[in-house]
């Protein structure tokens, strides 16, 4: 019993460390990316409707059920409060 608790604690710490590493890695990549100035007339590709950095309207129901069926929510992936989710 004690061993399994210890194992759970270790896996939890490992899990959090992995998260920190992954976040640092992503942030490092972002920092390393050199941004080049883009003029308005060069934005035709960025203005494509599929390039938006938000969720599509059609994803609303799936984001709603994911926020109910999973413990995590927020940061541009569905609403982070309000509503029961009692199902």
């Amino acid at each position, binding site marked *: 019993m004690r061993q399994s608790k210890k194992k759970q604690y270790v896996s939890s710490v490992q899990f959090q460390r992995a998260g920190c590493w992954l976040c640092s890695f992503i942030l490092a990549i972002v920092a390393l990316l050199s941004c080049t100035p883009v003029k308005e007339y060069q934005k035709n590709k960025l203005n494509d409707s599929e390039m938006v950095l938000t969720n599509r309207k059609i994803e609303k129901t799936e984001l709603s059920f994911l926020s109910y069926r999973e*413990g995590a929510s927020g940061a541009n992936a569905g609403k982070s409060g309000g509503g029961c989710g009692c199902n």
Partner: protein
Amino acid sequence: MKKLTLATIALYLGILSVFAQPLKQNDSAYKKRKLSFEEANLISSYYQQDGNNSSITGGIGTEKLTDLSTQFSIKLTKVDRKWRKHTFDLEMGIDHYTSASSDRIDLKANSSASYNDTRFYPSANWSMENEKKGTTVGAGGSLSVEFDYVSVGGQFNASKKTKDKSGEWGVKVFTYLDNLKMILPVELRSGPFIPRGTQYPWTDRNTFGTSLSYTQIVNTKLQLALLADVIFQQGFLGLPFHRVYFSDNSVHMENLPTTRWKIPVSLRFSYFASDHLILRGYYRYYQDDWDLSAHTLSIEPVIKPTAFFSISPFYRLYVQQATKYFAPYQVHTAANRFYTSNFDLSSFTSHFFGSGMRLATPGGVLGWSKLSALELRYGHYTRTNNLVSDVISLNLTLR
């Protein structure tokens, strides 16, 4: 004489045309200021799930559920005298669900009142964009009403573009002020909770949050968004009809702390690989003070055989570490101060995959000029603790 008359008429018409031009411009500017219809969306979805870890029966039992939802939204725009663009988003949604697990609030019931319910959720949002200054401000309100739950939401948001307009900072503050009916499992209805009555007492659950975002254009093909939320919840954060069975087989109502801090941080990108392929990606790390943590990773290549038709298969991976208050059926003891057997808060890995399809032909879809786009999306969800679900959605965009 005839020549002179013709010359006079030509001169007169010339003068008229000179004056007519600015008048015409003013007229069009006036028209722009009027509230005009931008687009309307009709979204309909069907969701079904099944599993065997219902929190209403203490972490065992059916989780069978179906949900049919329809949302209608309309977007209106207006340009004011200072040339600021105002956008109004009005939305109305209706869900009807059936839930086999909710039916088990009364263990003896076969098909009780809690078996199904309907939820209404209208919302209204306004935003004002000043293109010259690169700023946007907005506000919104929402309401969600069902038999045992009422939620009132409000939000304010503001954003400002960087000097070279390649980046944008955003901030949003939001709140949800919720009320829920204390409907306990039938066998636990005693004491302050009215037994078998319809006058159930209400209790509060409030959410206050701030979202910070930064979007950056990296080059002509790539853009990124960094997002971070800080969310605080207080009030009754469990659900009164969630049972927890202790190791001595005694039954209790789920008991969770009355406060919760949540911090999700995410990164989103979209990359224009070619005229026929766009890549969309998302990663999120989530941590809260109930010791629940999670990683979410999703990728969606958008394949465009033509400019008017696209297919977007997607895959989403989610890995969750359980909250310290979770234990399955008959594992908690009286020594635990807080306890839940809700498997949504347990450790698991989930996979969500499917595909979307979008058709937006010029001149209207399926021969209907007003129908500017038709989208269809299907997804299949599996969780390592045997919950499976499917969702299919249809979106019609009218312009």
